[in-house]
């Protein structure tokens, strides 16, 4: 099915099941521990051996020699895989560095060996017996130092790295009110609960991988490419994923080394990355340095805006697209953005939840707060005043409309709901006991892309509907919204739908990434269900014009047949793929929101504690308000972590992230997040898909950290432009103790 004209009324609009806050259908499995994650797929491969990865002890250089003799002789050891015996390995299309080092080492904890043994403990102990002699090379690890050598990258997530409208320099110079500020965001880790893990088994020349991966078809392609085998000889299964956040968009060393280990040991092999490897062996969100300049007239109209970003990556890698939202959020006749990329020899950087916008808002939305204060304007009003209903900076064009844009409504409703009028515009005025109290706001922007997505739907003789698609559920609720979609389309209750996900045996879907998963994968299910409805009607000789599917029956012209009966004992199957036309070129598809935060800062210890958070989101039709809310509060929590504590500390001498465990890399705990509210504005967007829905999982993080930073400023009068905003950055500037 091709979606190239805006949707009209369709069966989804009945909203009998879609749009309802139903419990997630996979909830009982997860709460009882019976949803089997990759490492616990005990039923898929008999008698698996255990693999343990040895990561490189240096960041850059060469392996001069590697002695595995003692490890091979250790109890229980079945095989040791290194680059010397692994055979030729290619680099996957989605990887920047190779997944097995040797002789060249590209980053710290890059895998140098896999030990396969009868037990996990034996494999781990033997890994400690491998002797590696390294030759260190000098590397670049400090973004601040490398900044001056940064160059313009070929592209920025598919967009041009630079953009220009009007004459920024002249307009900024002429602006009566100006702000020019530079912000730093640190490297951060996905730190998902489930580390990357895989079980691999070979049957002849066919490889099966039970793994934890957000993008099944990408993964299949990169496994095949890396190992040099045909794509159709690779099978991936990833039905449950314990968090991904972009860290599992790509194949990582657990999958490739499990495959190599299984080949060497002639046995199925399971490998989980030890926690310490998650930080330095896999991808992370890169640190950024961002300069934002805004010029405005005294009445608060922005006349000039510029956003420049510097980030680093290994050679061949890409930049952080932090300037994206600055092209989209506020009107201004003169503007420029620029993206520069430095070469760093840290582990490779890549996508993490809302790549670009997550960091970009941390600069832009603080600059907006600083500017509002300079203008003497309320920060909510300042944002509303500079709203734009067309894309402000669109590769030189300035007339393309948004399909929906309720930023102003989000800001207004949020201010009202949150009690924004209670905020004192003058900082450091509100005190409760030892606590200084402040409120902050930030706008939220994130694109609403769609991707081609397929599904297969089966109807059996009992009336059960089974959906198969390689779409993944990374904790987001995909199972449930897909079931809701199929139930609505086929006119059956939710318990008559079975959903099977995350397997190369199923039609290729959009996968989970870029907040495109929900809208795209349900559209694919819509397409397949539309075909199945036609097949049912045709089989019964019903006219497809007036056929209805409701209450488990299909009806037309006074005739009504139970679905199972209609399918017959052989059942019916339909498969289709939703493809998206050029509506996303005619209209800018985006989601908008506003975040409001209240913080308390201990006036003695300078500890920052959140008190309240509110997100107001406009993101198309909300397919399931309950799972959507879970997505947004999770994203808000991640934003709070970015604001207050999350930082991969770089050791510029050794070139690695030092705090590579969950004791050293702190993420928020329950006590940090006392109260969160989420409001979804009514919105249906018929130009996006027949579902009229968009994603929310990434919108929820955009702007959160800036709102926290702005609230800290309002509480204390201290403006910190270097995240995370820890107490050591506040202490020397805090208001005098009284």
């Amino acid at each position, binding site marked *: 099915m091709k979606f190239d004209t805006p949707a009209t009324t369709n069966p989804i609009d009945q909203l009998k099941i879609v749009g309802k806050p139903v419990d997630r259908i996979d909830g009982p499995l997860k709460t009882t521990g019976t949803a089997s994650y990759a490492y616990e797929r005990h039923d898929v491969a008999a008698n698996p051996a255990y693999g343990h990865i040895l990561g490189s002890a*240096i960041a850059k250089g060469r392996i001069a020699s590697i002695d595995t003799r003692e490890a091979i002789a250790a109890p229980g050891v079945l095989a040791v895989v290194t680059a010397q015996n692994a055979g030729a390995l290619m680099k996957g299309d989605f990887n920047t560095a190779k997944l097995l080092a040797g002789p060249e080492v590209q980053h710290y904890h890059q895998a140098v060996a896999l030990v396969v043994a009868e037990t996990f403990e034996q494999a781990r102990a033997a890994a400690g017996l491998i002797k590696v002699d390294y030759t260190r090379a000098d590397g670049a690890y400090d973004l601040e130092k490398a900044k001056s050598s940064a160059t313009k990258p070929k592209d920025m997530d598919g967009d041009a790295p630079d953009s220009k409208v009007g004459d920024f320099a002249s307009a900024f110079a002429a602006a009566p009110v100006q702000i020019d500020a530079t912000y730093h965001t640190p490297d951060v880790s996905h730190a998902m609960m489930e580390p990357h893990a895989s079980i691999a088994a070979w049957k002849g020349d066919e490889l099966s991988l039970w793994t934890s991966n957000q993008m099944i078809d990408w993964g299949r392609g990169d496994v095949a490419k890396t190992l040099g085998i045909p794509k159709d000889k690779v099978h991936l299964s990833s039905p449950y994923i314990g968090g991904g956040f972009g860290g599992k968009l790509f194949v990582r060393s657990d999958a490739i080394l499990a495959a190599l280990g299984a080949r060497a040991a002639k046995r199925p092999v399971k490998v989980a990355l030890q926690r310490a490897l998650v930080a330095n062996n896999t991808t992370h969100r890169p640190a950024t340095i961002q300069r934002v300049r805004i010029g405005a007239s005294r009445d608060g109209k922005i006349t000039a805006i510029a956003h420049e970003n510097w980030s680093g990556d290994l050679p061949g890698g890409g930049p952080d697209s932090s300037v994206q939202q600055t092209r989209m959020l506020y009107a201004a006749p003169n503007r420029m953005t620029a993206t520069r990329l430095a070469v760093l020899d840290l582990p490779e950087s890549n996508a993490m939840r809302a790549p670009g916008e997550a960091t970009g808002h941390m600069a832009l939305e603080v600059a907006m707060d600083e500017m509002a204060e300079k203008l003497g304007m309320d920060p909510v009003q300042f944002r509303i005043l500079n709203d734009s209903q067309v894309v402000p900076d669109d590769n030189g064009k300035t007339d393309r409309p948004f399909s929906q844009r309720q930023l102003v409504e989000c800001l207004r409703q949020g201010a009202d709901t949150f009690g924004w009028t209670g905020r004192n515009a003058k900082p450091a005025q509100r005190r409760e006991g030892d606590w200084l109290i402040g409120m902050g706001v930030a706008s939220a922007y994130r694109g609403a892309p769609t991707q081609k997505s397929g599904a297969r739907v089966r109807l059996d003789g009992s009336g059960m509907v089974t959906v198969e698609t390689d779409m993944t559920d990374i904790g987001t609720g995909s199972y449930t919204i897909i079931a809701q979609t199929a139930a609505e389309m086929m006119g059956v209750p939710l318990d008559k739908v079975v959903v099977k996900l995350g397997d190369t045996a199923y039609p290729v879907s959009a996968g989970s990434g870029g907040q495109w998963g929900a809208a795209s994968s349900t559209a694919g299910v819509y397409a397949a269900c539309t075909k199945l409805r036609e097949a049912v009607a045709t089989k019964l000789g019903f006219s497809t014009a007036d056929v209805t599917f409701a209450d488990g029956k299909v009806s037309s012209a006074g005739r009504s047949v139970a679905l199972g009966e209609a399918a017959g004992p052989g059942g019916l199957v339909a498969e289709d793929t939703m493809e998206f036309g050029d509506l996303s070129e005619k209209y800018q598809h985006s989601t908008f929101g506003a975040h409001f935060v209240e913080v308390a800062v201990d006036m003695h210890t300078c500890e920052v504690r959140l008190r309240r958070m509110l997100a107001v989101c406009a993101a198309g039709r909300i397919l399931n308000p309950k799972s959507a809310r879970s997505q947004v509060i999770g994203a808000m929590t991640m934003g709070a972590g970015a604001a207050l*504590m999350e930082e991969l500390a770089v050791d510029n001498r050794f070139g690695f992230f*030092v705090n590579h465990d969950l004791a050293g890399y*702190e993420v928020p705990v329950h006590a940090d997040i006392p109260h969160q509210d989420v409001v979804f504005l009514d919105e249906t967007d018929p130009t996006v898909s027949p579902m009229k829905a968009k994603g929310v999982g990434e919108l929820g993080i955009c702007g959160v950290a800036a709102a926290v930073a702005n609230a800290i400023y309002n509480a204390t009068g201290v403006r910190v432009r270097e995240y995370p905003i820890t107490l050591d950055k506040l202490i020397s500037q805090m208001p005098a103790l009284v």
Partner: protein
Amino acid sequence: MKPFTYERADSPAAAAAAAARNPGSRFIAGGTNLLDLMKLQIETPPHLVDVTGLKLDRIDKTDDGGLRIGALVRNTDLAADDRVRRDYGVLSRALLAGASGQLRNMATTAGNLLQRTRCPYFYDTNMPCNKRTPGSGCSAIGGYSRQLAVVGSSGSCIATHPSDMAVAMRALDAMVETVRSDGSTRTIPIADFHRLPGETPHIDTNLAPAELITAVTLPKPLGGKHIYKKVRDRASYAFALISVAAVIGKDGKGRVTIGGVAHKPWRVDAADAQLPQGAKATAQALFADAKPTKDNAYKIPLVERTLGVVLAQAGAKS
């Protein structure tokens, strides 16, 4: 984890003797720190002596009106004990500020005293660390040191002791009772229990090899206000950036011990003497010989500010 042998001891003296028979062995009780370190091959004991069966899990009154806390009393139970809550509030509060409920259920009194530093370079076996591998150097010096020591450190080590409980124990002048492999016992004042790193940062305490802690005793109740204030980046389940354990009398006199700043709970007699003069004078005495790094210099004003609020809470001059 390297393969190791294991035995259960049936008396404290037998446990110490078993340890002496197996050089390099470790006692294991809750295992909340040791097992992690063994998995990472930071600790590689050839032999473990399990002491959990030694029945050292009672809290009893001592003859002089204090408390004897068995070495195996769990942190959860110690924090909840009525006598501890009533007479040694600083200890109960320090315990509850540490770790998580699950860890406190497992962690023991003696094990808490013996937990090892959380310096990230100690935890990464690819990095030089004099505490882990004597003579290999200290990679924390000149590295990421935001959480490390500002005082009492050496050119060999800037690690901190991570315990909350030990900070309160130091403020209370606890005594550590031990038994050695020959069956002899001794009592070590907590002040002399932990060591400064000097040139031997691999030796955390003054326990002899194979010496087993059997109990920790507290003197008779001190009275005064008992306060434990822990400052950290997140609201729960984080090691202290700094912490203050204080027992302050109505007259403003008292004792204070600082956590998160040194290789051991940091208490200075001259600083205690300054308490009636307020936080600034006390902090000056505590950190007269401080050698902070650029990353952790904030700890000194942070302690002063935190002391100020602690003294105010105690009703003393802040």
